[in-house]
């Protein structure tokens, strides 16, 4: 059979969003791929130039529909670097709880989306069942189920609600037990193993050169993580180690990437429990919104030419906001906001990864890199 191009997308079950992967196949074997992005480019960077620093936060929530909190936090840290803001430690702990809960929810969303890719819908429903618990907790914090607008420049919107610690512990502990169900459904399922093991190899050095970070990199057997390499928040006060996978000598395959995320959920759950124990002032006290224990003082304007950026560990890799202050001419607005999306860089690499495999491996490989098109297209 002659080679032919197949256009997978923009509406295709594999894409997890709205983009096109052009695949050149020879029989069932993939010979070449071209990713084509930009279908939901909203111009967030341009919009941000016309909003003040507070108003940008909800827009950053909307960068990723699976992990909104991490993106608004990513922006907030960069804005705090720009505006030179001191954050109360209690607020940092609350942020950590919010971000780690969001990381669990995001990984669950990923796992839920990944299993239908290789033909099992049950895991999807199970994952969303557990994700609901995380969303409940996040809703108590942020007030919404998807886009929370939780952090503020200098702190957080509100304190942990009454009884939050109790519910959070109960739900996270229940979640830790239920992870075994996924392991039984996936790790101990031969068909899942033969579909994911030995497929989509990626080596750490190659990944770093291609700009792939986060769990995808840690699947290759190195424990690099922005959270300890360039420590922010209070990660250095908690006892943890990033999840790393023992992969084969050929590099990380889809199974490793699945495994590392499953393990990272456990790490995040552990971090949440630790943070609840270690939060200054205790998890059961409640401050009114705007209390100095929650919200540091922040200027609303940045001087001309001032810059701030922050590397942040997103569930999908390292995200980066680079903000240039507007000066007097722009009022409270920034002059330029630039966003580094991890998936924007990862998708071309994932597309390269799948050359030589079968068509059936396209969703298996692409899904294992956890694409989120909201942040990719910005």
């Amino acid at each position, binding site marked *: 059979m002659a080679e032919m191009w197949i256009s997978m997308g923009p509406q295709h079950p594999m894409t997890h969003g709205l983009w096109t992967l052009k695949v050149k196949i020879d029989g069932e074997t993939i010979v070449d791929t071209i990713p084509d*992005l*930009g279908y939901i*480019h909203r*111009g967030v*960077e*341009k919009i941000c*130039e016309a909003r003040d620093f507070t108003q940008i936060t909800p827009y950053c929530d909307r960068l990723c529909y699976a992990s909104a909190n991490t993106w608004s936090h990513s922006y907030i*840290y960069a804005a*705090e*670097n*720009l*505006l*030179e803001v*001191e*954050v109360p430690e209690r607020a940092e702990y609350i942020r950590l709880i919010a971000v780690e809960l969001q990381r669990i929810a995001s990984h669950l969303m990923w796992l839920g989306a990944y299993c239908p890719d290789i033909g099992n819908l049950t895991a999807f429903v199970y994952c969303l069942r557990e994700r609901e618990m995380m969303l409940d907790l996040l809703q108590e914090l942020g007030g919404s189920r998807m886009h929370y607008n939780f952090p503020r420049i200098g702190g957080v919107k509100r304190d942990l609600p009454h009884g939050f610690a109790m519910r959070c512990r109960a739900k996270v502990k229940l979640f830790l037990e239920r992870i075994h169900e996924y392991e039984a459904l996936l790790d101990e399922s031969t068909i899942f193993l033969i579909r994911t093991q030995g497929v989509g190899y990626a*080596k*750490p*050095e190659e990944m*770093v*050169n*291609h*700009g*792939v*970070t986060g769990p995808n*990199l840690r699947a*290759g*057997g*190195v*424990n*690099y993580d922005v959270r*300890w*390499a*360039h*420590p*922010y*928040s*209070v*990660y*250095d*006060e*908690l006892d943890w180690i990033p999840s790393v*996978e*023992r992969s*084969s*000598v050929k*590099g990380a395959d889809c199974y490793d990437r699945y495994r590392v995320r499953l393990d990272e959920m456990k790490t995040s759950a552990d971090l949440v429990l630790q943070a609840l124990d270690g939060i200054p002032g205790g998890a059961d006290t409640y401050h009114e919104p705007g209390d100095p224990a929650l919200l540091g003082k922040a200027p609303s304007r940045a001087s001309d030419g001032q810059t*701030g*950026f922050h*590397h942040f560990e997103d569930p999908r890799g390292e995200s*980066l906001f*680079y903000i*240039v202050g507007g000066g007097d*001419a722009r009022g409270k607005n920034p002059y*330029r906001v*630039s966003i*580094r999306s991890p998936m*924007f*860089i990862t998708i*071309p*690499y994932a597309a390269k990864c799948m050359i030589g495999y079968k068509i059936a491996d396209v969703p298996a490989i692409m899904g294992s890199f956890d694409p989120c098109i909201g942040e990719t297209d910005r």
Partner: protein
Amino acid sequence: MGMKVDNDKQVAASNDLISAIQAEFADEGLTCELRFHAGGKQKRPYVFIECPPAIWLIVAETLSEVHGVDYCSMITGIHWPEKAPEMEWQVVVHLMRMSIRNPKSKDGILIPTITDASIVQGAAMPLELEISIAIPETRTPSIPSVQHIWVGADWNEKETWDLVGIDFDGHKDMRRVLQPHETPAGFHPLQKQHKLRYHEFNEMYDDAQGFMRKSEDIGKVK
């Protein structure tokens, strides 16, 4: 307690890098300094380099090969019409040193390299770098591409050209990535002459294309 790269050691490693870079390139107009992030509990250091566009490629190669800067985080561009003659365009590059090597293997299985954050040192010390490249007033801004050094720079450069309009010499396969392929040549929305348009809110829905835009609205910023 906890995993953390020591701040002082990071400062020392940054200073080493700065002195090395300055010794090599100071004559050619490159300035290099240590800066600190303003926010956060730890004032973390980063290396700030101001690099003339002419030597950017050499600097990038040196950083990559000699100093082990293995990761290109972001390349972005800024249009500064106000700063016109000397810096109308600015390219900001964020690099990181991650010091990642492929782990050793035994019987076909990798032995994961768990870096102990507290004892990490020397060239393995993670670093942040910010490089600012100022391009003087021109209608065709362009700097050399570093696509071949860090493959991760590939799509960053595509995006920078697509949105800001700064071209990268030697970039293979330059094309629109975020905007439609049929976008007219020369249209780069993040350039400052393109304002966000102001609409009467009532007309917003009926006039998504802007056909009914009133003449007095054109050029208004929200």
